[in-house]
């Protein structure tokens, strides 16, 4: 394969007709750039095109690489796939797309021996989950009682940080504060602004008393940062490797994550592109930096436009039609009045206004459920697929699932609560787990005589697990292919339409596990090193597959059920981030669902904005007459200003 480099001025976006001028500017930027990309602005496409630009022009010069850091695993995967579609294999290999946790963990995994005192590790560590409530309370008691006990972690921290602390200070820290405090402490300087942070450092200190030190991903991030700050050669190696870095979902970046990035890249030649939407910042509870955009601007854009450093705002919305974009603009004016309005890329379809966006008003929940059935059936019959109808709720999906299910089942509509825990993980999370995905691919493969796409994906997974590159390491990959072929022929399900029972599915999954080997599967993703996380994912995969088999008549049907084909998804707004649906139905715009609105109106508005902006063609909201909605009067005022029509459930039912 022989290709010449393209001069930057001649370069054209690949695979798409073009980009809006601001997006093209961000794609071709030579300096640090912060891109505000509202909903549907084509964030992934922008990063994908930028990656292609960097590797096809003399911007990211071989053998240097591009590092793309995402907040979520599926985002990292989406970006990688987008990128692979847009450029050749050799170029795609020079893009490392991973989550923040994976990035921090691989730094610590390979360099932990360089940790300085007092955070030196004597051997490999293990990943632990969040601190549980009993653990926290125990630790709090122990700290309060041992402030002056020499050798106790809390005494050690207080002495080192030269801070006074009373037991009252310690009891004033609640678990939320404790959990969040890791976002604003630093291990290198012992900079500890709060009692909670002092306790958190003491907690890490206590973790160090274990033979194998248990660390949360946040602690791993902080230790990785300490490594970078104490060993400039490791930093030099990262900076030499990555000429360009992408940060996806900048608004959700936590203090720990931002701190690590800042320690590595501030003052380096590496060019950063941060993309996000401050209006969609709804992850405050998970430690998202309260002003990530501001911090990035003051750290990385200080040299200004003359140095190629710029804050660019994209305004085209490729997702929603003009009517919905209009509503989003009203919501936006409230959250970010200074940002330019979104511009719709698609016109409003020629439908009555209430069929594009309306508030469905029902006398009670039964009427609401009946109206929903009619609405969904009409959407389905107009050609919208079930997967493209998103039922969004603020919280408590299980209650809503139970309430709606009888009505839906009667009407033959399959409802899938993406949030339902299937014994270790929610369905939605399970679907993004590399292990569960691999199992699905394998099941798919075993139900086909000729593997096709599934074959290629499984083989690529195998090569990847083995550290090989499909298409390059021909000989060893050919050996893997032979192994896979043997496995396929001895486990081939000749008739995918034969009956299946839960046990059959589990038994086959066992054979797939044995084929790969548990240690190898466990090494697939960094999160699998964490406590019993991997076991839970395996358990959940089995349990859900068994459940699907029990509720289906054939192998083929059970796999379809597992994947959610022809099912209407129900999920929380939080989990809907980054997703899009032809039609969004936001259930329960009332005080019950939105009780926390007043606690943090900014986040409440952002949450509503996220929900509304998932819709491509239609946006419905529901409210029952027997529910209060006083807490949401600001939202209702905005909806009124946007001219959202009311649609009575009676009216819908009459249509049926």
């Amino acid at each position, binding site marked *: 394969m022989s290709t010449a480099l393209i001069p930057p001025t001649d370069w054209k976006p690949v695979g798409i007709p073009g980009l809006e001028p601001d997006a093209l500017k961000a794609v071709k930027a030579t300096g640090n750039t912060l891109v505000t990309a509202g909903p549907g602005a084509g964030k992934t496409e922008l990063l994908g095109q930028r990656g292609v630009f960097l590797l096809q022009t003399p911007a990211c010069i071989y053998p240097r690489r591009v590092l793309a850091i995402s907040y979520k695993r599926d985002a990292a995967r989406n970006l990688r796939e987008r990128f692979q579609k847009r450029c050749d294999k050799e170029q795609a290999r020079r893009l490392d797309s991973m989550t923040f946790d994976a990035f921090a963990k*691989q730094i610590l995994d*390979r360099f932990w021996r360089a940790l300085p005192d007092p955070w030196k590790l004597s051997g490999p560590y293990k990943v632990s989950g969040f601190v549980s409530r009993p653990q926290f309370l125990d630790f709090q008691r122990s700290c309060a009682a041992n402030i002056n006990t020499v050798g106790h972690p809390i005494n050690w921290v207080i002495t080192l940080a030269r801070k006074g602390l009373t037991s009252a200070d310690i009891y004033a820290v609640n678990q939320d504060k404790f959990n969040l405090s890791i976002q604003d402490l630093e291990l290198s300087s012992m900079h500890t602004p709060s009692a909670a942070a002092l306790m958190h450092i003491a907690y890490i200190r206590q973790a160090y008393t274990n033979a194998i030190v248990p660390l949360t991903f946040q602690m791993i991030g902080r230790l990785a940062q300490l490594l970078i700050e*104490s060993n400039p050669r490791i930093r030099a190696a990262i900076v030499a490797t990555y000429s360009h870095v992408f940060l996806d979902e900048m608004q959700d970046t936590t203090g720990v994550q931002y701190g690590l990035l800042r320690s590595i890249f501030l003052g380096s030649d590496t060019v950063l592109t941060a993309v996000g939407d401050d209006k969609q910042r709804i992850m405050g509870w998970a430690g998202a930096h309260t002003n990530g955009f501001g911090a990035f601007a003051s750290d990385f854009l200080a040299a200004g436009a003359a140095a190629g450093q710029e804050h660019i705002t994209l305004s085209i919305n490729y997702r929603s039609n003009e009517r919905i974009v209009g509503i989003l603009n009203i919501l936006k004016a409230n959250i970010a009045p200074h940002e330019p309005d979104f511009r719709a890329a698609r016109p409003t379809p020629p439908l009555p206004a209430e069929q594009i966006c309306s508030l469905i008003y029902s006398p009670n929940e039964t009427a609401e459920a009946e109206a929903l059935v009619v609405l969904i059936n009409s959407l389905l019959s107009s050609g919208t697929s079930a997967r493209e109808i998103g039922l969004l709720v603020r919280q408590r999906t299980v209650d809503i699932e139970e309430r709606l299910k009888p009505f839906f089942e009667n009407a033959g509509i399959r409802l899938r609560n993406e949030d339902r825990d299937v014994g270790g993980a929610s369905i939605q999370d399970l679907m993004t787990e590399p292990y569960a995905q691999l199992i699905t691919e394998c099941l798919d493969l075993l139900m086909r005589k000729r593997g096709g796409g599934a074959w290629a994906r499984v083989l690529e997974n195998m090569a990847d697990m083995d550290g090989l590159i499909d298409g390059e390491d021909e000989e060893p990959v050919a050996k893997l292919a032979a192994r896979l072929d043997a496995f396929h022929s001895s486990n081939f399900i000749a008739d995918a339409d034969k009956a299946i029972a839960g046990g059959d599915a589990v038994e086959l999954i066992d054979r797939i596990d044995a084929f790969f080997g548990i240690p190898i599967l466990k090494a697939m993703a960094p999160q699998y090193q964490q406590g019993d996380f991997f076991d839970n994912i395996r358990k959940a995969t089995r349990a859900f597959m068994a459940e699907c088999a029990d509720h289906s008549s054939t192998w083929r049907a059970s796999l379809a059920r597992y994947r959610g084909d022809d099912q209407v998804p129900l999920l929380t707004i939080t989990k809907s981030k980054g997703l899009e649906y032809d039609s969004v139905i936001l259930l329960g715009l009332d005080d019950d669902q939105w009780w926390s609105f007043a606690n943090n109106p900014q986040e409440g508005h952002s949450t509503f904005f996220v929900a509304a902006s998932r819709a491509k063609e239609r946006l419905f909201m529901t409210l029952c007459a027997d529910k209060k909605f006083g807490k949401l009067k600001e939202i209702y005022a905005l909806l009124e200003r946007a001219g959202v029509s009311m649609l009575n459930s009676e009216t819908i039912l009459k249509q049926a």
Partner: protein
Amino acid sequence: MKIANIQLWGFRCFGAAVPLPTDQHPAAPIKIDFDDGITALIGRNGSGKSALLTALQRLFGETRDERSIRQEDFFVAPGQTLEAQAQRSLIIEAVVIFPELETGSKEAEKTVPPGFRHMIVDSVGKTPFARIRLEATWQQSGALDGTIEENIYWILTDQAVPFGPPEDLSLKRRMSQADRASIIVRYIPASRDVTTLTKLTVKSLGRSLMQSVVWQNKAKISTLLKEAGAALDAEESLLQINKAINTCWSALNTADTQTSARLSILPPDFQQIVRAASVNLDPSPIGRAMAIEDLSDGQRSLFHFALVKSPLEFKLSLEVEVSKGNNPPFSQEFMRAPALTLFAFEEPENHLAPYFLSRLMTELQTLTGGQRVQGLVTSHSPAIVGRLAPEALRHMRLRTETGISYGSKLKLPDERDEAAKFVREAVRAHPEIYFARHAIFGEGASEEIVLPRIADALDVPVDRSFVAIVPIGGRYIEHFWRLVTQLGIPHTTLMDLDLGRSSGDLAQFKAVAKAVSDLNPPADPVLATDLANAQTLVRNAWGAPWDTAKIEPWVKFFEQFGVFFSDPLDLDMAMLAAFPDAYRKLLPGASGPQNPGDATRQAEAAAVVLGSSGFGSAPYLGSTLMPHFPWYSYLFLGKRGKPAVHLAALSELTDAQIKASCPPVLQRLISRVRDQLERGGA
């Protein structure tokens, strides 16, 4: 980026004493450290020099053939056959370091990215490095030669990692071919194969040109080719020949009338023309172009190096162009040099005059100054190793009883030791010492001139190419002894007794006794006691008047350790006393010392020669040597210089004269050297 070391288990002569690692490393691998610049491997034939080059080719060779592990790569103990075991395994492991991360050099942007995701650190404040391991297993099987399986891995820990497929991917991961290709070993064999190799290199250059050049006049060239082809075809002679061929062909090939044969002189298309590229040398305005075959052996080997080196330098320069934002007319792939290129030269001295050798080494040294190139040479040539610091030399040796080869750094004094600089300089000035079959350590220039002549006269040919005579001024003898002992070279030392001088006689005994007992303490308790006693000798306690009877036994005592003393003063006096006529012969116009027969004059001269810090001239009073002092002073402390004096005197002497009057200590010394050479030569 540099290779810091290579570790071998069970590869060729780098055998493993224990069966290969199941869980832990066996006893110890054979480890050879590399210098950042050029490392030179020295050692006898069959000591493992070439095997080490082969190991590097297996790891990072350019071609699949160079990289393939074969049957003969597996270590087989002496007296065994390969098939004595059902299975054999081997490991070749390299540690790669990145000094550019310490200096903040931009070169890191070329060298670090390919391996960054597999780099590790072993302790606080250290620089990241990487471990790369090739594992191979040979198994007896139905196939005639058995089956060989090989895998290459990144090792992600500084700890021991078991042999075999990785169970824990956080410790060991497969290395992709793309990553492997970021280090390339360019092997340049001893010149016998150079012609074939050069042709291959030229061919591959043509191939890569076809793939990588962005041709700017392709259409024009193609048109010209077509025209030239048509013109050729229109030549009457060709038409006739083609007709004849076709007549015959169609008669034979009656079944298929579609094909017609045609003699084509010009390759039919552009691609084939480029592939047929060859290199010619235009010697002079009158001569025709020379092909590579027309070059001399030496020129061919130089040319091969040039051919191998120039694409690398060209690619490195293209990299710079690209990083400046320019767009040279080549494909991206072509404009990439490997992160590290290691030139592995086998005996570059073959067929090359020392002058060319030094040019070649200078070129290589310049290249290896950066982080992208490293050099490795095997050599038997002082002209090669003399250009390198002794620290860059590795001595290879084979233990015949186990059949296992080892490689080690030279044992040199610690850098903080004041001896360090002296020893380094002495060795660099006399690189022949590395290859000698015997080493004679002398005091200075006099020994270098006198000893070969005397040996010659005594019918012991002491060729400087295999008997090294290294002047060391009597200093740091133990360091030199240690060095040659490591190299397996027997040695003899000739020192001045310097009787009367401050650093002479008893002081010399003390120094030699200490060196002997430090380095090679005798098993015999009597000898050990004597050596201990020698170290306690004190001039004052010995007292005056001078007692020859006490000195002489010590002089003899040390000869059993190979240490001889020019007795009683030095070699100059010994020669002067032995051959007074030859030495006293005056040059035309010279008048010689004044009143050499005068006793006062003699005493004065002796006092000047011997000083007053030691015994002074006391031991010589009344001896037969006294009349020589004015001449000694005239000849050896004057302007002529010792070498000239000795050369002049020796030219006066016949072999018979030398044989008859040679100082006895030199006779004993030469006969020891002869004995040792004969023993070693067996």
